[in-house]
């Protein structure tokens, strides 16, 4: 009986060949554009080696409307409804960011009351966005209950927005130089009431998931983005802060008088999916805190820039009773708010990250060029770097943790 001698090298080569045979070639799969895990119309071309992702190529543009082209062809006020459709999870914030950008071009300061109203709107939008973001993120990780809690609260916020603007979703509330109308009677009381109901729910969500073992397994050390990577890829908002970069434009370059309010900016340490969850959760608490302060010290006075005769169309009752205001209204509606020529870039801390408007004006009521720097676009650009190395079931968790919206990404 002869025993065949085999060397270690042979065994290695043979097992490698068997492995190769077992795994076969790498496989390309397509996720989206219409898939519940992609939160919209994101399409991913994913290269797989077994269950492990080895490459990821996001394909975007399925929701491209050409907003920048449209903006070049209409007056500033006419573009406000289009900004609703950018980040449609918290549309009112986009209205206000756009108005602030144009006001910066005009060198216009809005009165204190207007700023306080806008600040409440911005924080309501942040709550709307984060409630949805956290709710669906829970669903992406397999925790369906959280979504029910967050959506119940979100509905109340929509009711508030409806009382204020007349629309639940497409608010179009901001105007260049002010807002569409003053707050209705009793609205601030309703806001406080909703905040009182919302706060315990945030704690409940926290209890449901933040110490949940399954949730930990799905999110801790998954999708780690280092500080340097986050800056290089232009991440912003909660995603950037979860990676440990203390960048919040509300603190760094305050607008709307944010410097007069007390609030904290939560910062993550690991930059993984769990930190992104925790940052959003804490931001909701801070938003409630901000809204309470703003309601408490809501100043009296004008709610639009009364001096800006060529920019803000006066309220309807004045238009119908005074000749001068009728002319003013006519000129603004037909010609648009009159802007000086110049270039201006303004960014604000939107719920999803920093939304920026770069406006090139040659004077008149229509921008010559307007670029929208959308946070979701930049946040998604990290996917080719972030997804490889994870397994397929991690993909929904990663996408959920980035909390993007394609309406803004594709513009």
């Amino acid at each position: 009986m002869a025993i065949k001698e085999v060397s270690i090298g042979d065994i290695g080569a043979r097992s490698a060949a068997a492995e190769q045979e077992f795994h076969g070639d790498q496989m390309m799969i397509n996720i989206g554009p219409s898939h519940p895990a992609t939160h919209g119309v994101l399409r991913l071309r994913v290269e797989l080696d077994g269950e492990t992702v080895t490459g990821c190529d996001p394909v975007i543009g399925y929701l491209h409307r050409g907003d920048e082209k449209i903006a070049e062809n209409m007056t500033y006020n006419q573009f406000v409804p289009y900004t609703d459709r950018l980040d449609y999870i918290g549309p009112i914030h986009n209205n206000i960011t756009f108005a602030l950008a144009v006001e910066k071009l005009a060198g216009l300061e809005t009165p204190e009351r207007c700023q306080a109203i806008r600040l409440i709107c911005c924080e309501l939008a942040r709550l709307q966005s984060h409630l949805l973001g956290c709710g669906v993120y829970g669903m992406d990780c397999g925790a369906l209950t959280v979504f029910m809690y967050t959506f119940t609260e979100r509905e109340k916020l929509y009711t508030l927005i409806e009382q204020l603007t007349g629309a639940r979703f497409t608010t179009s509330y901001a105007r260049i130089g002010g807002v569409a109308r003053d707050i209705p009677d009793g609205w601030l009381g309703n806001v406080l009431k909703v905040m009182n109901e919302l706060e315990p729910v945030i704690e409940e969500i926290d209890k449901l998931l933040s110490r949940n073992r399954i949730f930990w397994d799905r999110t801790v050390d998954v999708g780690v983005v280092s500080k340097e990577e986050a800056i290089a890829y232009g991440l912003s908002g909660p995603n950037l802060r979860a990676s440990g970069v203390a960048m919040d434009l509300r603190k760094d370059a305050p607008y709307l008088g944010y410097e007069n309010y007390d609030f904290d900016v939560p910062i993550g340490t690991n930059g993984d999916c769990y930190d992104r969850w925790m940052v959003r959760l804490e931001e909701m608490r801070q938003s409630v805190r901000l809204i309470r302060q703003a309601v408490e010290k809501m100043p009296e006075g004008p709610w639009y820039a009364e001096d800006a005769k060529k920019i803000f169309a006066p309220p309807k009752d004045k238009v119908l009773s005074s000749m001068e205001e009728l002319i003013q209204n006519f000129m603004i509606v037909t010609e648009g708010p009159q802007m000086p020529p110049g270039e201006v870039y303004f960014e604000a801390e939107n719920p999803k990250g920093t939304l920026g408007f770069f406006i090139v004006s040659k004077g008149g009521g229509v921008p010559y060029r307007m670029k929208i720097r959308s946070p979701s676009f930049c946040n998604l650009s990290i996917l080719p770097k972030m997804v490889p190395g994870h397994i397929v079931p991690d993909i929904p968790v990663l996408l959920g943790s980035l909390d993007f919206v394609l309406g803004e990404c594709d513009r």
Partner: protein
Amino acid sequence: MNTRTQTIEEAHPYITERESADWPAYNCPQENVVELLRYLKDEQDFDFLSDLTAIDHFDTRPRFEVVYHVYSTERHEYLRVVTPCSGEADPVCPSVVDLWATADWHEREAFDMFGIQFEGHPDLRRILMWDSYPYHPLRKEFPLAGKEVEFPDEDLVEATGKTVEPAPMMGGPFHASHTGSMVDREPRADDESWNEHNERRDTPGEEPGPPRELRGKH
């Protein structure tokens, strides 16, 4: 800030101040722009590329300019750098992907929308429009209503044996199917008569790019 702008200006004598309504802004010749941005990033702490985009000036030369907005996460300041593109029909600009990874998608978008070739970009292809789309929609001669494109995707045409006629405003898998002409449903889109910069366009010195054409059926 004043001393900082002075330092930047002294270190780079080729840059000139650019008119700006907010942050400091510089015009920089194309051959030096990568060097300048690297200096700003490494030595002046402008570590965050907020935005990269382009402007089409249409009737002034140079026609295309690329605009960079850099931000300092330490000092909370912005800076705008603008560089002209060489070439008229096929503008060219150096890529800054090596400096900031986020420039990858921004440059792809500028290529898609304006047709600017970024030299040194690892993977310059369209990002918002589909790959076989023939136009660059944010160029000023491109009409708001869009242009009919016969073949949305060569693969699709090969597989289905059909030709589809989408236009930019009605593309995408989630748009309702259409019957009849787009202009009937979106009459505003074809009416650019009231638009200020169209009036100026009636008397051009020299017309770059293809002439404006109304869509065939109308």
